[in-house]
């Protein structure tokens, strides 16, 4: 198996802070790979480095054998790298169908065509994709009127319209209800194997349902890459997660119930109004 995406010593620093530090990663073609890690582990930064939204300060990125380190986000997108954004990032004044068409026409139709024209294959593709993500009823609704969950589904349709070889999904289940994230899981599982998927997700249920390989990032470095079971059983991973939790509490002494998962969102809320919460955020 050849690696579709290879990262070698990829790093990005912001001043003295190394957000991502010497990451080596191979993503096999057709893989379902998840990136997880506690807060500030550098997941989102690594994502931007892969997509080209942000330039690396060290290392190389190789996409199906070609080095793309110096290529812009636009060029990488043209080479089959699509992404869904952490925060729904769509064209709000336009309908769901127009959003997908905008992506589809770039990769299938003629986006540079200066005269009005009916793009039949683009239209067909839009219908198929909206069908696939379960939005066919909502095709003519402006995005601004879609619900949060529907927007996330639309994000996926837009990304798929780019005909990606590599699909980057940044927290696709964020803010979804249980039913919605279940639907999302099905959707991703149903993707053809010629699309490789990398997913950053906080919802570990989604991660373990989708991913065949999981990479755990911690403080900008790869802590572990392995099967979901290996990751679940790893003491180092436990420590990374719990360590960050206890450290958060160092800065917010009022917070209680250190290890209860229910307790942490509460602790978060309690720090919101406090001046020291900025310290907590800095972690």
């Amino acid at each position, binding site marked *: 198996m050849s690696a579709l995406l290879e990262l070698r010593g990829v790093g990005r620093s912001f001043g003295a802070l190394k957000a991502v530090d010497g990451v080596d990663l191979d993503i096999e073609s057709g893989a379902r790979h998840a990136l997880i890690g506690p807060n500030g582990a550098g997941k989102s930064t690594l994502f931007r480095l892969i997509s080209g939204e942000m330039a690396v300060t060290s290392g190389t990125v190789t996409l199906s054998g070609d080095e793309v380190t110096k290529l812009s986000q*636009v060029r990488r997108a043209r080479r089959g790298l699509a992404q869904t954004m952490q925060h729904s990032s769509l064209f709000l004044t336009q309908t769901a169908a127009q959003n997908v068409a905008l992506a589809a026409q770039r990769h299938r139709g003629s986006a540079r065509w200066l005269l009005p024209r009916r793009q039949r294959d683009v239209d067909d593709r839009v219908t198929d994709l909206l069908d696939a993500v379960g939005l066919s009823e909502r095709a003519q609704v402006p995005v601004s009127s879609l619900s949060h969950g529907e927007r996330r589904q639309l994000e996926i349709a837009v990304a798929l319209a780019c005909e990606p070889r590599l699909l980057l999904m940044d927290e696709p289940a964020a803010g979804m209800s249980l039913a919605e994230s279940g639907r999302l899981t099905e959707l991703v599982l149903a993707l053809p194997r010629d699309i490789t998927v990398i997913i950053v997700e*906080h919802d570990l249920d989604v991660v373990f349902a989708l991913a065949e390989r999981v990479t755990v990032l911690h403080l900008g470095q790869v802590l572990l890459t392995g099967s979901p079971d290996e990751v679940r059983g790893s003491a180092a991973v436990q420590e990374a997660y719990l360590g960050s939790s206890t450290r958060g509490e160092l800065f917010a002494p009022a917070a209680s119930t250190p290890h209860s998962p229910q307790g942490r969102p509460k602790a978060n809320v309690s720090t919101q109004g406090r001046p020291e919460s900025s310290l907590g955020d800095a972690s």
Partner: protein
Amino acid sequence: MSVEPAPSAVDAPSAAATGTGAPSGSTRRRLPLTGLTALAVLILLAAVPLFVAPFQTSMLARMLIFALLAVSLDLLVGVTGLPSLGHAAYFGVGAYTAGLVAKYWTAAAPVPLLAAVGVAAFAATATGWLAVRSHGVFFLMLTLAIGELIQQLAESWSGVTGGDNGLSGIPAVEVAGQPLTLVGYVYWYVLVFAVLGFAMIWAVSRSPFGAALRGIRDNEPRMRSLGYSPFRYKLAGFVIAGAVAGLAGGLLASQQFALVTPADLGFTTSALALLAVAVGGAGSLWGPAIGAALVVLIRDVYGPDLDGHGTLVLGAVFIVAVYLLRNGIAGLATTRFRRRGPPPSDAAPPPDPTQGATGAPVSGGFRQNRQDGRQAGESSQRLDSDDPSSDPPNPGVKRS
């Protein structure tokens, strides 16, 4: 007789309007009568010289020319989201080019116009290459600077442009070897090319390319991730808009006793065009055409009666438009057509930013369409719902 031009004047640019078909926000459905309305207005416009006095006819021609300038600016402002304060520069470049070509080379029909379009497109390419790299206020300032520079050039290069006195003595345009000296013929000449120009902008805005421009207006970073290079698309849009503005300039120079002055490419003209776009409704194309007619009407027709206080009235119109008509005249019309019920004044207050189901899409170039940061109920099933970096717009989601 003298009463007549006013109403038909307002109708005039709505030819453009109807030509432009459904507004660019494009969630609106096309009015079934659009094509017929276009035809009717076109016929009406074409018939004008047969019924209207020469002075009013040439005033109408001026409106058409200014409307074409406003519509070309709308391609930038409303469709691409690039509010330019120097768009008259290309208008002026076209006017000077056409004037000079007619004066020193040939006045045979399309030649001065083609030269105007070509040179304006070239000027737009050269300056746009720099300008479209910037965003927001910087773009505004840069286009303003470019406009001022070109105006300076027109003023100081007096050997060619006639300096402050302007370029005069431009011969009448010739069709098939015959100079067009009658106002009615000149008007038809202007009408034909203005309609062509409107059609061009309309076609571009409805094309796949136009959809890409609207995508850039709405969300430029996302366009990049879809594989579009915003720079190229914006530059192409800028050049097309500049070329059509040049066409409008060329038409200005083809009028009888035409005089092209540095004021035609200065800040005031740019600002008036922008005003026309704002009052008419950015993004709709036909709205700015009506806005342009209104501007010319107030400034040139009623202005002299108001002791030169026409600009004051324009200012008042602008304020009223901004406060009462968030989407300009076009917004008024579409609201009225789409939901029969409420009178236009009901539609006037700013739409709720959270946008109701049928809320008219906000397509103003002035209001940058912001990404919707509000995301309903984030962070339900997360391991790390206290991740501060992952969802900045939503720090206050409280779950207990």
